[in-house]
C-alpha cells in the first residue's frame, strides 16, 4: 500500500475498531485548495467505496475542516442529501494534511456533463425542486445548532449589511475605477432590502458544478466549505446566476430548470420565498463574483499567486459587468 492508503487504512481501522485495508485509490479531482480521492475500504470481508477530501495544508481552509464535517452531518440529519461523513481528521501528520472521509457517490458533477445528462433524462425540473427542497430543510435547522466554527455576521449586524460591507471593501481595492461596478454598488445600496426576519445556516455555493446528479435525480450536495450563518435567500439566488448556466441561459436555475418548480418546491417544504431579496442577492452575487475575478488578477500582478489563469480572470470582469447591468436595468431603461 502507498503511504496515503496506509494512513487512511490505519485511521479508519482505529475508528471502526477492526482491521481495514485500502485499495483502488483514484484521484477524482484536484483543485488549488483540496483534493478529492475515491478509494475502496475493506473490513471484515465487506468493501465500501469511500471518498477522502484532503487539504494540502491546514492554513488555506475557508472554514475549519472539522466545522465543515459537522455542518454536513447536521444537514444530513435534517434530510439534506449529502454524502455520509465517517469522520474528520485534523491532524496533518496522518496522511499529510487534514481530511475527512465520506461515502462515495457516483454520478455527474462536471457542469457540461450534468447539462447533457439532464437533457437526456429530462429531469432538470425534478433536480431543481430537489435542490430547493434540500435548501428548505437546511434553512429549517435551528441556527443555534450551527457549529461554532461557521462564520456569521458580527453582533448587531445583519447578513445584508455584512455582504454590502464586503462588496464596498472589495471595490476599494480595485486597481482602477470600474464605473459599472460602482453603479452596481449604488443599486445595491438604493435597493437594499430589510434584513431577513430569520438567519439560518446557509451553504452559499449550491449550484451546477457542486451537486452530483444521476438519471434518478439529485444524489448529493457537495463542497460545504463556504457554509455560514446568513440570509436563506442568498442560498436560493446563487444557483440562479448566469455563470452557473453554462450557456443554457433559457433555464434560470443552473441551466437545468425554469424558476417555478424550484420556487414552488422551496415553499412546499416550508421555506419563505422573498422575491425582492432573491433579486437583490442575484445582483450582489454577480457583483461579488466580478470583484473576485478582479482580485485574482490583482493577486497575479502583485506576485501573491502568479499564474496565467489568474491573469486571465482580469479579462473576464466585463462578463460579470454585463450580467450585472442586465439585472439592474432602471425603470424605463432597456438593453437593445
Amino acid at each position, binding site marked *: 500500500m502507498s503511504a496515503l492508503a496506509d494512513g487512511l487504512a490505519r485511521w479508519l481501522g482505529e475508528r471502526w475498531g477492526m482491521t481495514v485495508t485500502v485499495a483502488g485509490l483514484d484521484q477524482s479531482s484536484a483543485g488549488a485548495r483540496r483534493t478529492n480521492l475515491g478509494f475502496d475500504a475493506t473490513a471484515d470481508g465487506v468493501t465500501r467505496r469511500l471518498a477522502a477530501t484532503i487539504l494540502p495544508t491546514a492554513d488555506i481552509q475557508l472554514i475549519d475542516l472539522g466545522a465543515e464535517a459537522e455542518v454536513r452531518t447536521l444537514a444530513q440529519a435534517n434530510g439534506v442529501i449529502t454524502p455520509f461523513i465517517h469522520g474528520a481528521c485534523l491532524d496533518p501528520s496522518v496522511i499529510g494534511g487534514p481530511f475527512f472521509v465520506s461515502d462515495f457517490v457516483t454520478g455527474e458533477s462536471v457542469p457540461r456533463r450534468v447539462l447533457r445528462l439532464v437533457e437526456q433524462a429530462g429531469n432538470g425540473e425534478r433536480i431543481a425542486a430537489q435542490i430547493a427542497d434540500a435548501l428548505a430543510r437546511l434553512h429549517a435547522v435551528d441556527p443555534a445548532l450551527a457549529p461554532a466554527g461557521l462564520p456569521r455576521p458580527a453582533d448587531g449586524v445583519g447578513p445584508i449589511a455584512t455582504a454590502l460591507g464586503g462588496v464596498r471593501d472589495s471595490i476599494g481595492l480595485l486597481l*482602477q*475605477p*470600474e*464605473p*459599472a461596478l*460602482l*453603479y452596481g454598488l*449604488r443599486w445595491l*445600496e*438604493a435597493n437594499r432590502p430589510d434584513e431577513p426576519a430569520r438567519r439560518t445556516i446557509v451553504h452559499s455555493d449550491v449550484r451546477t458544478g457542486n451537486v452530483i446528479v444521476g438519471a434518478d435525480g439529485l444524489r448529493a450536495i457537495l463542497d460545504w466549505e463556504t457554509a455560514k450563518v446568513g440570509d436563506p435567500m442568498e442560498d436560493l439566488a446563487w444557483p440562479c446566476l*448566469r455563470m452557473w448556466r453554462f450557456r443554457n*441561459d433559457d433555464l434560470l436555475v443552473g441551466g437545468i430548470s425554469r424558476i417555478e418548480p424550484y420556487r414552488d418546491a422551496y415553499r412546499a417544504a416550508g421555506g419563505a420565498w422573498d422575491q425582492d431579496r432573491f433579486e437583490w442577492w*442575484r445582483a450582489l452575487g*454577480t457583483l461579488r463574483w466580478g470583484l473576485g475575478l478582479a482580485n485574482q488578477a490583482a493577486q497575479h500582478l502583485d506576485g501573491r499567486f502568479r*499564474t*496565467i*489563469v489568474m*491573469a*486571465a480572470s482580469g*479579462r*473576464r470582469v*466585463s*462578463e460579470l*459587468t*454585463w*450580467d450585472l*447591468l*442586465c*439585472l*439592474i*436595468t*432602471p*425603470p*424605463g*431603461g432597456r*438593453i437593445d
Partner: protein
Amino acid sequence: MQYRPTAAELLADIADLLDDEVLDAVGGPLQHRVRVAGNLARILEREVRLAPVADAAEAERLRALLGRDGTLVELRAALAARLGDPTPFDADTERAVHAALVATTRADLAIAKPGHDDWSRG
C-alpha cells in the same frame, strides 16, 4: 514603423501556434494554461484591432454624459466619483448612465468575450 506582420497578425499567429500545435504537445495541468494563453492571445488580437475605436467612442459618451472634457482616464475617474456620491440621479440621467455603461461593456465584450451579450435578461 514596423514592417508587416502587424501586431494583430502576429497575435493571431501566436494564438494559432498555442491552440493548434502546443496544446497537443503538452500534457497534464500545463494544457489548461496553454489553452488560457491561446485565448488571451486572441483577446489581445481583438484588442489591438478594436480598442482604439472603442476607447474613442467611450470618451465621447462620457463627455456627453458628464458635460465636460478630458482624457478617457480622467473622464472615467469623474464618472466613478459621481457614482460614489449617493445623491440619486433623476430618472433620465439614471437611464443615460446605465445606457452608457451598457455600451461600454458591450465594446469590452467584443474584445474579451464576443457573444456574451447575446443574452440580456440576467
